[in-house]
């Protein structure tokens, strides 16, 4: 997937652990891990909103588009 999540970078900036974020946002660690590892196929706006609120960032800070050459 050419879309990657920089969740770990933002977590480091805020000095927050994944467990802490999951408690604050109300999403299970399992689901956050899926998001972090890039296995996720979609993300709800509500989820994005909660994460952005807790990490004090914009969606662009979490999601990044990396162009991939067609093989």
């Amino acid at each position, binding site marked *: 997937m050419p879309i990657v999540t920089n969740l770990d970078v933002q977590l480091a900036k805020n000095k927050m652990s994944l467990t802490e974020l999951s408690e604050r946002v109300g*999403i299970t660690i399992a*689901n*956050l891990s*899926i*998001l972090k590892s890039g*296995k*996720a*196929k*979609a*993300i*709800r706006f509500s*989820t994005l909103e909660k994460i952005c609120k807790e990490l004090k960032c914009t969606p662009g800070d979490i999601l990044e588009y990396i162009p991939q050459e067609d093989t």
Partner: protein
Amino acid sequence: MENRKLLVISNSIINIFWVLQILFVILLVVYTLLLIFHVDFIDANILKGFKIHFKSIDFVQPLMHDGQAYKMKLTNGEGRLHADSLNQNFIYFRVLAAFIDSVMYLLILYFLRKILKNLTSDNFFIPENGKLIKKIGYSIIALAIIPEVIHYFTDKMITKSISIENVVIKSEFHFDYQTILLGIIVFVISIVFLRGVEIKEEQDLTI
């Protein structure tokens, strides 16, 4: 809750069918062995005659009733044909057709039991169920075609090898379109189901 009950009921019905079908297959094997080894302790005539579909059987002698002669004939029926000098090999084809038939049923019941097992353990939209439904569809279509083809060819051979006066044996291909339709319906449902599995996976990976 309602569905849960229905699931339990269908599960027990399928289990009963499963046991009966296994018994039937065992009986069929025993029957075949009796035929092969010409065991005489049961009435061999019952085993030896084989089922035919006839178009018409004319009675040679007119039946007398109240001094009047009635010329009669039987049309469009089925029965067991017994003849001493007849080549008995045809019956093995018939047994083969019956065997394929019952094994197909057994296979369908096996797939169905697997699906029901998944459903009772709360695994509804998993790819395995979709594949099993598809396999059931294939089996139903095979069930409609394979035994009919064997029946057709044995009928053809029988009609070729024996020509009894006044008896016309049918050798028509019986196209069982109802069962084929049923198979196609199951097949279409499996396609819908597999799409459902895809949607479910996407839903699971949406955070």
